[in-house]
């Protein structure tokens, strides 16, 4: 991990217009990604993790979606204002993605070779033969046995774990600077998950790829990521280095989340800690802290205004009135 910032997301807002109103799926998200860093984005379903990342690479269906504001700077250039051609140069090449469901993200009608060669020919300007050699080499790196034979098979001939390996090989085939992995192991079994995570970690380290890992599993981020962003109702509520987030979480939501997971390495007697209530509906959210109805440290001001982001030591920050000076003055 170096100090060079390769991706900077500034105040990103992605809204969806539906019959009931405006869904503010992502509402002012900012973060930075350094070269070689693994950044985890954690949150529950509907918190805006996936939409954030689809917005980065311009894959939001519009309409009903709309990028209502913000910037996504990749090496200083705003990706949100680029032409479709410019985006296509980056997407799949400099920034590639792995999706959750390896069953649906491969085209069932095409051989693996066709799908992999297509990307490499397009982005690397190699000939078909050279691309195929490169593809076989990538599959081998991804731990697929007999890649020369397997490459001419169809997706249904691979198991779930193997398909995710193919996706990883494909995603890394153009030496991307950033790999966005959206719940890459959530559809997989525990032992296969361990295989895939280890593979991702090893390959991205070797190739120096930065990773944005989207997941709902705290266990996965703890083992994989350098930094973590915790999202709730379309915003980042806490951010920091992995050790700090787990050791001294500041936002009540992060604290609750960490405490409510039963632990394999500890005895949990009696009741589990649980955050009461439900995640909010993000349609027409009022401008207050969206977590206040579930928060055990709620104050009056939380119900009136969205809290500012308060910085702590070691690059940690949290959006909570508990730490804001204005709240103490009020």
């Amino acid at each position: 991990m170096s100090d060079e910032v390769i991706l900077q997301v500034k105040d990103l807002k992605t809204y969806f217009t539906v019959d009931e109103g405006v869904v503010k799926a992502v509402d002012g998200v900012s973060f930075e990604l350094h070269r070689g860093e693994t950044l985890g984005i954690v949150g529950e379903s509907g918190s805006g993790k996936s939409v954030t990342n689809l917005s980065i690479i311009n894959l939001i269906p519009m309409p009903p979606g709309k990028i209502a504001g913000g910037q996504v700077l990749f090496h200083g250039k705003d990706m949100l204002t680029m032409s479709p051609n410019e985006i296509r140069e980056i997407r799949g090449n400099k920034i590639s993605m792995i999706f959750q469901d390896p069953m649906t993200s491969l085209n069932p009608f095409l051989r693996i070779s066709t799908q992999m060669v297509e990307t490499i020919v397009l982005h690397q300007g190699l000939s078909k033969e050279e691309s195929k050699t490169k593809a076989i080499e990538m599959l081998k790196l991804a731990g697929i046995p007999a890649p020369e034979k397997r490459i001419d098979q169809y997706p249904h001939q691979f198991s779930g774990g193997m398909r995710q390996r193919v996706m990883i090989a494909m995603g890394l085939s153009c030496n991307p600077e950033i790999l966005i992995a959206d719940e890459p192991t959530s559809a997989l079994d525990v032992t296969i998950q361990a295989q895939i995570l280890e593979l991702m970690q090893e390959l991205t380290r070797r190739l120096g790829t930065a990773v944005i890992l989207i997941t709902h599993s705290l266990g996965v981020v703890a083992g994989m990521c350098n930094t973590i962003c915790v999202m709730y109702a379309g915003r980042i509520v806490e951010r920091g280095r992995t050790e700090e987030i787990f050791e001294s979480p500041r936002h009540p939501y992060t604290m609750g989340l960490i405490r409510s997971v039963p632990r394999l390495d500890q005895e949990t007697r009696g009741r589990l800690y649980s955050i009461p209530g439900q995640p909010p509906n993000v349609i027409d959210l009022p401008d207050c802290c969206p977590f206040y109805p579930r928060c055990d440290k709620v104050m009056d001001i939380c119900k009136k205004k969205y809290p500012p982001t308060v910085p702590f030591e070691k690059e940690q920050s949290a959006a909570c009135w508990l730490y804001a000076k204005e709240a103490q003055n009020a």
Partner: protein
Amino acid sequence: MPDHEILLDVRGLKMHFPIRTGFFSKAKNFIYAVDGVDFQVRKGETLGLVGESGCGKSTTARAIAQLYKPTAGEVYLNNLDLTKANGQELLAARKNMQMVFQDPYASLNPRMTAGDIIAEPIRIFKKNGLMEASKDEIDDRVEQLMEKVGLSRFFKNRYPHEFSGGQRQRIGIARALALNPELILCDEPVSALDVSIQSQILNLFRDLQDEFGLTYLFIAHDLSVIKYISTRVAVMYLGLIVEIADAGDLYKNPLHPYTEALLSAAPIPDPKIEAKRHRIILTGDVPSPDKQRPGCNFYDRCPKHMDICKKVRPALKETEPGHQVSCFLYHKPE
């Protein structure tokens, strides 16, 4: 082993599904989803059943509930063999055995209100003359159940789509409780839920167990959930139980190489521990259960396999009091 009252006794349960190539053709082959499992569930305990997808956990639960007709084996609930029970006996037995399913979106009828869904088991029993209940009594019972599972009784007339995933799971639990069963078969009841909701539902399961003295057969693939909820844990692999032990014992002292690998593969939400952990990474995938192996089902992936494992299937045997394992590392073949 101290004496425990056995509520559910499963003996040699097998569930094979035929693979047919055409509608009228004879079965060419079988999927050996469950291939001979024996276990007992004691009154008042929670037996956790854990394993990866395709290992036969759900099939086991469904075969116990007689939603599938088991290929072989016996299932005794309160000393009645359900596999041989006739329709009326089975219906009566189901009063004591209810199920909670994984997907709260698919397991509730979208055209019925929450109140009707919860009342349905009672109405069915009433219709079959197995229970007396007036309309008012049913209404009272439904409201009482809803409050028990943490739903407001004012939601009685709402439809499933008006509820969130966690609330729907509560409706499913209320329905399972409607007949005051002794045993609830819970098939991955929390795996479709978010972390913060999952802990609420796990607490609910515990509270209900304390209040009504329920017995659970609790299926999950998440090892930490199983550890939290279970008294004893059975680990399944490819249609067979490979290890059964008290929860604490199993997690502290896993014997079967598969259990060891499973425990070491599960991520722990603590970066310090994660950095130091030694993982046993299993190679390969879970093989397809479409053939019966002469030896140990785990042979191909086992880091400790021996020659004998390929030829003879290890039996599930007690190695320490209350700890059964099927592995030749711990007992010699007969």
